[in-house]
C-alpha cells in the first residue's frame, strides 16, 4: 500500500523506533508503574507494609469501594456517571441487615420474624440494588436527563429512604452466616477479597468477551453509531445502571457483614472514591475508554495510600494533603492521558 502507516511489518527497529516503543509501553502501563512505585516506597518506609496480613488488609479495605468502582467503570464507559452508589449501599445495608438479625437480639427490627435462610437478605439486598440502578437507568435512557441529575436524585432519595427505613438507627447483631460475607475466610483468604476478585474477573469477561461489553464501548464511543448499527441503546443503558446498583448492593452486603450492622449513614462519599478509582485507572469521562484492570489498580492505589499513610503515622490533616497530591501526580504521570485526549 502507498500508505506507510499501514505496513508496520518491518522487523528491524531503529533506536528512534525503540524510544517510541518504550514510550508507548510506559504510556500504556503508566498507572501500573505508579502503583508499583507506591508499593515499593511504602515497603521501604515501613517493614509491616509488605506482609501477607497487611496486603490482605489493604484489599479487604478497598473491597467495597472496589466493587462499586467496577460497576461505575462500566457506567462511565457509556458516558454516564453514578452518584448514588454510596446511598444505595446504605439502603441495601439496612434492609438486608433487618432480615438477618439474630433472633435472640432484643432490639430486632421485626421482633416476630423467624430466622430466615441466608439467601433471603442476600437476594432482597441485591434486588433493592438492582431496583435503584434500574430507576437510574430508566431516567437516563428514557427521559434523556443527564445521568448526573438522575443519580444525584437517587443519591438523596436512597439516603432518605435508608434513614426512614431504619429510623436513623443502626440495624445490628446479625447472624454468623451473614457476617461470614464480610468476616469469613476461605483457605486463609478473606471472603470479601475472594468476592472482589471474582467480580473483577466477571466484569472483565463481561466487558471484553460478550456482546454486552462491545455494546457498552460502542454506546460510550459513539451513541449514534451504536444506534444506527441496530443496538437498543436504551435497553443497554438500563442494564448498565442495574449492574451498577447490584455492585453497590454487593458492597453493602460485604460492608454491613464486616461490621455486623446495617447503617443508614454507611457509604457516605463512597461514590466519589469509586469514581476516583476508575478515573485514576484510566476511564475517560468522555466515554468509550476504560478497563477493569485499570480500575482495580486505581482502587488499590487508593487503598495503599490510606493504609500506608496510616502506617507511616502521617497526621490526619497531612494525610489529606499528601493523598490529594499523589492522586493528581499519579494521573499526571500516567501518560495515557494523551491517549484520552485524542
Amino acid at each position, binding site marked *: 500500500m502507498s500508505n506507510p502507516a499501514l505496513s508496520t511489518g518491518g522487523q528491524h527497529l531503529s533506536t528512534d523506533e525503540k524510544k517510541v516503543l518504550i514510550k508507548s509501553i510506559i504510556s500504556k502501563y503508566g498507572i501500573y508503574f505508579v502503583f508499583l512505585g507506591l508499593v515499593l516506597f511504602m515497603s521501604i518506609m515501613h517493614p509491616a507494609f509488605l506482609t501477607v496480613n497487611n496486603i490482605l*488488609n489493604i484489599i479487604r479495605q478497598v473491597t467495597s469501594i472496589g466493587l462499586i468502582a467496577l460497576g461505575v467503570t462500566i457506567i462511565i464507559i457509556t458516558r454516564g456517571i453514578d452518584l448514588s452508589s454510596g446511598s444505595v449501599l446504605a439502603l441495601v445495608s439496612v434492609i438486608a441487615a433487618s432480615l438477618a438479625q439474630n433472633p435472640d437480639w432484643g432490639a430486632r427490627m421485626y421482633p416476630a420474624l423467624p430466622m430466615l435462610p441466608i439467601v433471603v437478605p442476600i437476594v432482597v439486598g441485591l434486588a433493592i440494588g438492582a431496583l435503584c440502578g434500574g430507576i437510574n437507568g430508566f431516567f437516563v435512557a428514557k427521559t434523556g436527563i443527564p445521568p448526573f441529575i438522575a443519580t444525584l436524585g437517587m443519591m438523596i432519595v436512597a439516603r432518605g429512604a435508608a434513614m426512614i427505613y431504619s429510623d*436513623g*438507627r*443502626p440495624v445490628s447483631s446479625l447472624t454468623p452466616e451473614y457476617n461470614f460475607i464480610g468476616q469469613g475466610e476461605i483457605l486463609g483468604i478473606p471472603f470479601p477479597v475472594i468476592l472482589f476478585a471474582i467480580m473483577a474477573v466477571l466484569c472483565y469477561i463481561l466487558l471484553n468477551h460478550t456482546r454486552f461489553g462491545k455494546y457498552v464501548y460502542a454506546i460510550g464511543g459513539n451513541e449514534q453509531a451504536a444506534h444506527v448499527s441496530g443496538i437498543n441503546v436504551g435497553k443497554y443503558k438500563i442494564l448498565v445502571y442495574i449492574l451498577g446498583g447490584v455492585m453497590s448492593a454487593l458492597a453493602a452486603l460485604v460492608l454491613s457483614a464486616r*461490621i455486623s*450492622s446495617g447503617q443508614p*449513614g454507611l457509604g457516605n462519599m463512597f461514590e466519589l472514591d469509586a469514581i476516583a478509582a476508575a478515573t485514576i485507572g484510566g476511564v475517560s469521562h468522555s466515554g468509550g475508554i476504560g478497563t477493569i484492570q485499570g480500575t482495580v489498580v486505581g482502587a488499590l492505589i487508593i487503598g495503599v495510600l490510606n493504609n500506608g499513610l496510616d502506617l507511616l*503515622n502521617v497526621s*490526619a490533616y497531612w494525610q489529606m494533603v499528601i493523598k490529594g497530591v499523589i492522586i493528581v501526580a499519579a494521573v499526571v504521570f500516567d501518560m495515557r492521558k494523551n491517549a484520552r485526549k485524542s
Partner: protein
Amino acid sequence: GQKDDGRIKIGASFCAFNDTFQMYMKDAMDAKAAELGDVDVVYTDGKEDITIQLSQVENFIAQGMDSMIVCPTNGDAAKSISDAAIKAGISIVYLNRMPTELPDGTYYVGSDERTAGQIQGKYIAEQLQGKGQVGVIMGIPGLDNTVKRTEGVKDILKDHPEMAVTREQTGRWMRDLGMSVAENWITSGDNMAAIIANNDDMALGAVAALEASNMKDNVLVMGIDATPDALAFMKDGRLDATVFQDPVGQGAGSLMVAYNLAKKQPVEKETWIPFELVTPENYKDYL
C-alpha cells in the same frame, strides 16, 4: 510487646477530626502523653465512618500497637472492631461513645450521650416551667450522638404534657446550616419557646438567626460541648446554656487506661466522666 526503644505505642482512632470537641480530647491526650514521656500516640481520622475506623484498627494491629483507643462513630457497630482487637490480643479502650457490648479485653472511658440530651431537656423544662414548644436542631442524621442526644431531650419532654418537640431538622453539626434551619423556623411563624441543638456550633447559628430578627429574648437556646466559642457567647449573654463534656477527663483518662493496659497494670473496666450543665451562673468555671 514493647519495641526495642522501650517506648509504648498507642493508636487512637477518632470519629471525626472536624469535630471540635474531639480535637480537645486529642489535645488532652497529647498533653498527657507528653507528661508520661515514654509513649507515642498515633492519631487517625475516621471521617464519621465506622468502616474506615475498622480499617484503621486493622492498620494499628499491623503496626504492632501496644494498645488502642477508639472513639467509635457508632457504638452499635463496634463489635467487629472489638473482635479484630481481641483476635490480635491487643486491648482496646473505647472513648466517649459507649459500644453496645464490652467484651473482655475492651474498656470504656466516657459518658452517656443520652444523658447530655436529658440534661438539656431538664434545664429547658425548668426554665420554661413545663410549658412551650421546642425545636431540636440535629447533627448528621444517623450518627450515634445525633440519635441519642435527641432521644435524651424527648425522654424528658415526654413527662411534660404542655411541652412538645414541634420541629426537628438537621444542621449537620455546622453553624451555617444550624442558622439556616433556625431562620426558616422563625419565618414559619411558629411560637417556639426554645431551640435545643445537638451541639454548640448549631446552637450559635440559631442564636445568630434569632438575633437577626430580634427574637433572641423570647427564645431559649441551648447546645452541647461548652466550646470556647459557646462560652464566649454565654459571657455576652447570647447563649442560654450548654452541656459540658469533659474533654480532658475523657482524653487524658482514656490515654491513662490505654497506657496502663500496655504496661499490664490493672485498670477499671468502665470509667464514667459525667456531663455537666453550664449556665450563665457557672460558665466561668469552664473558661
